[in-house]
């Protein structure tokens, strides 16, 4: 249920941005979540709705994009997408890898008027 804490922190950022941007209504919030973060979108959206009830963001649409896990091999320098949680370079077999995507917890943009 880390969805609740993430939703809570997101709602604070969204409402602050709406206040600073003098938005009367937030219509859409665009978010990126890495696959490794294991956020369940339905639970997250439910939690976010609770956090923004009776605010300018109460009817905002939530757009969640899930970013797949990608790694860069420190051995051969190539990067590749990780399938089925097997963190092994698919080109040279090395396990000396750096995560280049999949851990995101980002707000891409906030739309409103």
């Amino acid at each position: 249920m880390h969805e609740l804490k993430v939703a809570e922190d997101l709602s604070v950022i969204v409402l602050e941005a709406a206040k600073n941007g003098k938005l009367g209504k937030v219509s859409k919030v665009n978010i990126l979540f890495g696959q490794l973060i294991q956020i369940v979108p339905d639970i997250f959206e439910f939690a976010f709705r609770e956090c923004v009830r009776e605010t300018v963001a109460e009817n905002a649409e939530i757009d969640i994009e899930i970013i797949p896990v990608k790694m860069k091999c420190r051995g051969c320098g190539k990067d590749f997408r990780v399938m089925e949680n097997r963190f092994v370079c698919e080109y040279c077999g090395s396990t000396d890898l750096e995560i280049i995507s999949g851990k995101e917890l980002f707000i891409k943009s906030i739309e409103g008027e």
Partner: protein
Amino acid sequence: MKNILDRNQNKANEVRSLLKSKKVVMVNLISSPGAGKTTLLERTLEEIGSKFRIGIIEGDITTDRDARRLQKFNVPIVVINTEGGCHLDSHSISKVLPSFNLDDLDVLFVENVGNLICPSQFDLGETFKLAVVSTTEGDDKPGKYPMLFREARAVLLNKTDIPYTNFKLESFKTDLRNINASVPLFEISCTKSDGLKGWFDWIEGQIFNE
């Protein structure tokens, strides 16, 4: 683009630099409920309690039962009750740090709330994370919770003495190596005190090196 958990991350960075300046190593223990974190701490305090100045933060949803079990070691212990929250965060850690005299500590063990997903997403400002898993949970945990097993500096497999499970050590190791090929793995039984020597040597080495 803004990180949603910026607030947590900024506070974690503050905690980390404070602890670094005080030369305190903070170890974040993560496992599912009942894997044996508290028993591991008991065995560890018995062994290294006289060699280092140790403090403990007990994260629990409710009750101070774990803390009471550790009271006999006469080390400073602070309980954080999350009142339903499934993980600790950097703000809760930062709030309780003034209860410790950091100048008189070498290491601070944080027993996180029992849960394999949520605690691994929230940086507490720790020096490193440890994953504790037990044979009774099944051998498929690394693949199901990759983030924790990827980020842990060591993995402890507890309850290796229990014979009545269908846990397959080789499957577990294959699963773990797919996620993290080089992480040290300690196969232990905290109730029988099996296999703990390697763990004690390792943790002492980590505290010295930091």
